[in-house]
């Protein structure tokens, strides 16, 4: 027994007393739960700003030859909207916020492996946001979120600010990735083997691996772009012997895995919520876990499918087309496992469950259009049309953002100690789900008919559909106000949640809400997997020694 206490005791890595000053407690906090809340608040703010840019674009596109925004402003709006949504909203919320909040709790750790680095990587993030949105002062980037050279070489100083912003995010993401990976490998509670880990932890592990492998490439590409823009050193400029396609190769070698950084944690969230509200073990635990690993590995071998129209030789295109389609297999394994979990489940239709069901339908649809785009002949036709815009939003909004809201409604009680209002949550869901589909579904049609993306005016034949899309987009934006109201209402007068309001079985629900500073007063010892509903709880506790010992 004593030996077990010893092993358990050392798993928390750093030991120091709880912070006592306001600054150490809430600003420069090293507690993973506080850092998670910091991420939620900052990313939430950037979500509002990036969303307002989208509404500006839809206002411009409401009629065919509108002059509300100048072409330049329109270009700046979509470039910053895309960059911000990817790097300041979806990735930080899924890894920085959810990863920080949930992963250490689910593995029974007292914190992440390197709390100081965790704080450091959060504090790289607000300056990045300020740089990105501040670039409007000097003229924001205009070449989309991918900033292809040579266009990006000729833009104003704002593009250099974009480079620095994304570089900071890249460093932050790399550090968080290696921190999480060490935490998951080294700090799991006694008895928590790899196959007893909750599926969200599996997803976070693969995401962390992708973050720190892929993001380093992005840093290299950005460094090159920044050097070329500042010192005129030729890498990408064809006029000086460089190659613009080189940027595309390195950029997509990051950004394709990044697509899975943006969806795998959402898969993890769905895999946690489904069994809880179906009251039965998740179907195919190992299949879901290993398919995440398969997706992670495949993600490095498909980057050139973003470059089918950049003049690649056909013998290069073919393997990338096949490999891209193969990604559909592990993803399909997940989808079918989730549906099989629903089958015969004792389903409780709570708000998190609504969002999960919304996720399943919209993400699957986005996956299918992904297979269409993977096919080279189809891609040549669909590339640079609204079809791609529609596909991307079905995956990143219908997938990631629905997953984020599912996770928010699910873990809100754990994070704040109070419940969100279920009725308001369901109103939020239906408004969001209907207006989301009304916004992005018609984009498939106008895309296939040939309406190009990234233009501020268009042929009047698309006028009626675009007006409909714009009105839906405003409703979609407004639906977020319901959530904001719900969040404020819950903070002021929400019902007390208690430690396990949903009757879930993973470790984070075994401690009070919100969790105390050291998470676990007594060290949990894990005895079986996390999803065996109807059996005794899968853990026991042993008394821990909580005296504070400094470690050099």
């Amino acid at each position: 027994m004593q030996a077990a206490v010893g092993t358990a005791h050392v798993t928390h890595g750093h030991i120091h007393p709880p912070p006592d000053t306001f600054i150490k407690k809430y600003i420069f906090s090293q507690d993973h739960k506080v850092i998670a809340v910091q991420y939620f608040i900052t990313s939430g703010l950037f979500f509002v700003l990036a969303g307002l840019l989208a509404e500006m674009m839809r206002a411009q596109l409401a009629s065919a030859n509108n002059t509300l925004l100048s072409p330049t402003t329109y270009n700046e709006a979509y470039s910053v909207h895309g960059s911000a949504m990817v790097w300041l909203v979806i990735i930080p919320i899924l890894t920085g916020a959810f990863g920080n909040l949930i992963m250490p709790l689910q593995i029974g750790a007292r914190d992440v492996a390197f709390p100081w680095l965790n704080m450091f990587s959060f504090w790289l993030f607000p300056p990045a946001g300020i740089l990105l949105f501040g670039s409007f002062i000097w003229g924001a980037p205009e070449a989309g979120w991918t900033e292809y050279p040579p266009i990006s070489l000729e833009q104003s100083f704002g593009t250099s600010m974009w480079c620095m912003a994304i570089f900071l995010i890249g460093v932050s993401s790399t550090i968080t990735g290696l921190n999480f990976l060490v935490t998951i490998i080294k700090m799991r509670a006694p008895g928590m083997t790899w196959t007893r880990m909750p599926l969200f932890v599996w997803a976070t592990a693969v995401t962390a691996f992708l973050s720190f492998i892929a993001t380093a490439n992005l840093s290299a590409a950005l460094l090159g772009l920044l050097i070329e823009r500042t010192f005129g050193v030729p890498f990408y400029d064809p006029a000086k012997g460089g190659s613009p396609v080189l940027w595309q190769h390195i950029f997509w070698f990051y950004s394709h895995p990044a697509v899975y950084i943006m969806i795998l944690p959402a898969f993890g969230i769905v895999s946690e919520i489904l069994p809880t509200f179906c009251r039965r073990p998740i179907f195919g635990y190992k299949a879901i876990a290993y398919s995440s690993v398969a997706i992670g590995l495949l993600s490095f071998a498909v980057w050139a499918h973003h470059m089918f129209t950049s003049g690649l030789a056909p013998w290069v295109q073919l393997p990338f087309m096949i490999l891209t389609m193969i990604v559909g297999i592990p993803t399909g394994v997940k989808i079918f496992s989730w549906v099989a979990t629903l089958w015969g489940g004792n389903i409780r239709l709570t708000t998190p469950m609504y969002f999960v069901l919304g996720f399943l339908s919209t993400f699957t649809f986005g996956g299918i259009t992904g297979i269409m785009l993977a096919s080279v002949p189809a891609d040549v036709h669909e590339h640079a049309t609204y079809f791609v815009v529609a596909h991307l939003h079905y995956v990143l909004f219908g997938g990631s953002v629905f997953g984020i809201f599912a996770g928010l409604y699910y873990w809100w009680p754990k994070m704040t100690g109070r419940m969100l209002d279920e009725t308001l949550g369901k109103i939020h869901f239906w408004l969001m789900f209907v207006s989301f589909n009304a916004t992005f579904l018609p984009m498939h049609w106008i895309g296939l008919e040939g309406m190009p993306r990234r233009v501020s005016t268009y042929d009047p034949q698309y006028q009626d559909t675009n007006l409909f899309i714009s009105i839906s987009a405003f409703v979609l934006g407004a639906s977020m106000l319901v959530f904001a109201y719900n969040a404020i209402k819950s903070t002021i007068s929400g019902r007390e949640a208690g430690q396990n309001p949903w009757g879930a079985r993973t470790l984070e629900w075994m401690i009070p809400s919100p969790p105390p500073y050291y998470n676990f007063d007594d060290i949990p010892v894990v005895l079986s997997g996390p999803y065996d509903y109807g059996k005794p709880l899968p853990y026991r506790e042993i008394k821990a020694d909580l005296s504070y010992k400094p470690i050099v």
Partner: protein
Amino acid sequence: MATHALTVDDATYQEVRDQRLLGFLFFLISDVIIFSSFIYGYIYLRSTVMAWPPPGIEPAALYMAGVNSIVLFGSGATMHYAMEFFKHGDRRKFVGYMIATIILGLGFLGGQAFEYFNLLHAGTSWPSSIYGAAFFTLTGLHGFHVFIGVIFLITVLIQAQRGTYTQQRYFGLTAGALYWHFVDVIWVALFSLLYVWK
């Protein structure tokens, strides 16, 4: 002798050291990826042109880089011995070999500065052509790593002299040595790519 290091039991120390070591290895892997991206870029750019270096551009000299490489690999050897002497408790030789490593590292940087000076004199500058761009970026990135490494080793040496490390607990020294060997290994790749590959 730092007394605070002794307040934690050895099992705890080993757990923490293992975490830090793993974290540091992951950091080095991400650094390898950054170099790989630039190396990939080098090969890609080189494959797009007929002649390398492009006509009229003076290439970097093999013999000078060769001498410099011997200096750098020598510093890897002295680092190895410094580590061994530390483990065996020979503090005097440890300090000697550490100083030798730092001096050899500085020597490498000096050699690189000399090489840069010659190249710039011959008209091969950073923005002059894709050859200059690729050469100065890769060697500059490596030189920057050597520079950071020298500061790292000086810090480690000062900490060792202050008694931060004991014969059982010396993670900072391990990290410094790993980083130094990593810089060495990267140089093998860069040397073959930039100088030997004609």
